[in-house]
């Protein structure tokens, strides 16, 4: 039995997610819903034979119980409004905006919350990229004092919603760091880089800690990356954990996309969608 799902929001994220879900054998997209029928995403969805609608949230009001789960790929403020409606309808929400309605979810750490919660939040691209590494790293640290993550994404991979939500991106990612590592002193930076050819998504993690157990740390991180690659195919450690002259531990990861909708450099779109699908897979196991 397939999970019946709908995608709300037909921008970069929604369209890439559509193409990814169509490749799975456990998700059936019952509707691809937005506001403009002439958008690129709508045209692609139509060409794939997917049921489309330009009625936005009204589609769900008019078609209650049309699906088991909806992927909200709109904006943080819209997603907050949508959440109330979906809750009433008993449709689970996998939220790909930084709206922070539901509990934050990193499939590698706590995917089981999808079984009990009505709304789970996929944090942010920088959050999905860094959290598995940070979670493991934090277990090797005593007295974590400060965590900083810096993500660089290609300008062309950031749509208008991402840009308007830039503060939400920062605040949500900071909250996730605190939730998954216990460290309250955090800094998150996002750089949009217009260089051509487009840069790949890259996230650098800086950690200040009283004490760190370096023994087998790189090996453990590499093992973890092999696991992650089962759902994020091009996840790569480009700078292994290194202690710099000021006692700061630095590591860098690069995430390339699979090029489903936007080109491969858009690893930021890819990773959050990969995570959303991985969480859906957990839901499927419960059926």
């Amino acid at each position, binding site marked *: 039995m397939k999970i019946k799902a709908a995608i709300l929001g037909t921008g970069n994220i929604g369209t890439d997610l559509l193409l990814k879900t169509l490749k799975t054998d456990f998700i059936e997209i019952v509707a691809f819903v937005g506001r403009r029928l002439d958008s690129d995403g709508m045209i692609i969805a139509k060409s794939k034979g997917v049921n489309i609608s330009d009625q936005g949230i009204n589609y769900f009001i008019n078609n209650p119980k049309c699906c088991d789960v909806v992927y909200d790929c709109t904006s943080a403020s819209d997603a907050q409004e949508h959440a109330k409606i979906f809750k009433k309808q008993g449709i689970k929400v996998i939220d790909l905006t930084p709206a922070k309605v539901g509990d934050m979810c990193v499939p590698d750490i706590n995917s089981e919350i999808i079984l009990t919660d009505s709304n789970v939040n996929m944090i942010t691209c920088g959050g999905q990229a860094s959290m598995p590494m940070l979670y493991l790293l934090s277990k090797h640290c005593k007295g974590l004092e400060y965590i900083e993550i810096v993500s660089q994404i290609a300008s062309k991979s950031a749509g208008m919603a991402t840009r308007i939500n830039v*503060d939400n991106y920062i605040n949500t990612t900071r909250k996730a760091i605190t939730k998954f590592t216990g460290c309250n002193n955090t800094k998150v930076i996002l750089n949009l880089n217009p260089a051509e050819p487009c840069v790949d998504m890259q996230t650098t993690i800086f950690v200040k800690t009283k004490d760190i157990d370096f023994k087998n740390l790189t090996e453990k991180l590499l093992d973890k990356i092999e696991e992650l690659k089962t759902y994020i195919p091009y996840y790569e450690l480009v700078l292994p954990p290194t202690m710099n002259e000021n006692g700061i531990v630095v590591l860098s990861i690069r995430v390339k996309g699979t090029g489903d909708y936007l080109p491969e450099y858009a690893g930021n779109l890819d990773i959050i969608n990969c995570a959303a699908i991985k969480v859906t897979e957990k839901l499927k196991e419960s059926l």
Partner: protein
Amino acid sequence: MKKIIITDSSLRDGNHSVKHTISLDSIEKYCQFADKAGIPIVEVGHGNGLAASSLLIGKSPNTDKEMLTVARKNLKNSKLGVHTIPGLSTIDDAKLAVDYGVDVFRVATHCTEATLSKSHIEYLAKTGKTVYGVLMMSALISADELVEQAKIMESYGAEAIIIMDSTGTYLPKDVEERIRKLKAYTNIKVGFHAHNNLGCAIANSLVAAECGADLIDACIRGFGAGAGNAPLELLLPVLEKSGFKTGIDFKKTIKEADKVMDYLIPEVPITTPINVLTGLTRLFSGFEKPIIKASKLYGVEYSSLIFELGNRKLVAGQEDLILEVAQKLKNK
């Protein structure tokens, strides 16, 4: 006589040249001078602005609150300004800055990314504070593209658009084309922020004024990133002799230009050969030190490294690629 509004960026851009360590005492002393000399806007903070203290760019020993509070206390007539880059700072940081008494917010993005400023400019415009839009690294795009980006910031509510020559690349003719077009195609004030990589900071600032710029940035002794900015003590007489009015006391300024050597500026910025090359190749001035490091490490000439980096059109934030390019050059 046309009035030019000068923004003094010494206490912000100057922070780049001392790794963001300008002391609270220095801020206090310089603000006291600036206030007495009648400088209209004094910009204060970390080199990259609000909430920019970080391991990536450089930790500041002083918080935004400490720096801005000291400045505010000592600026009775001058307005207090901040630089703020969405993606690095958030509106929450701007709210705090409002509480600390900041009057002028200069919301900055890379020259192609004006849309990133939407929520910040719109929020600040509603507070009633003065909000300017700033396009950094502006020599990377054409005058027409710059106009498009400026109009985006104007549509969000920016009261002025300031173009920064962060790479120090412009010649006077480039500034002339851009300022004229910005004046013609937008309905807000236009400003210019020079860097001196090609020795044109003063000439470019003068041309900007002659082409109708309303706002010009300057720093005492050119105290700023890389080759430095337009020196305030030099810009004032040049503007006055050209028929512009700044309202700033020149005598006090020229005296302070000596005094700052005792408390603010360890070394007056000069245009080094590397600065010339990065200016020509439109590379971020902040690449200077990573370039030196990489050229030593791999035994390649920094000039060939710089030209190769220029060919690749690297922008700020791609410091990690400098080592990679140096390594490839070595193996050629």
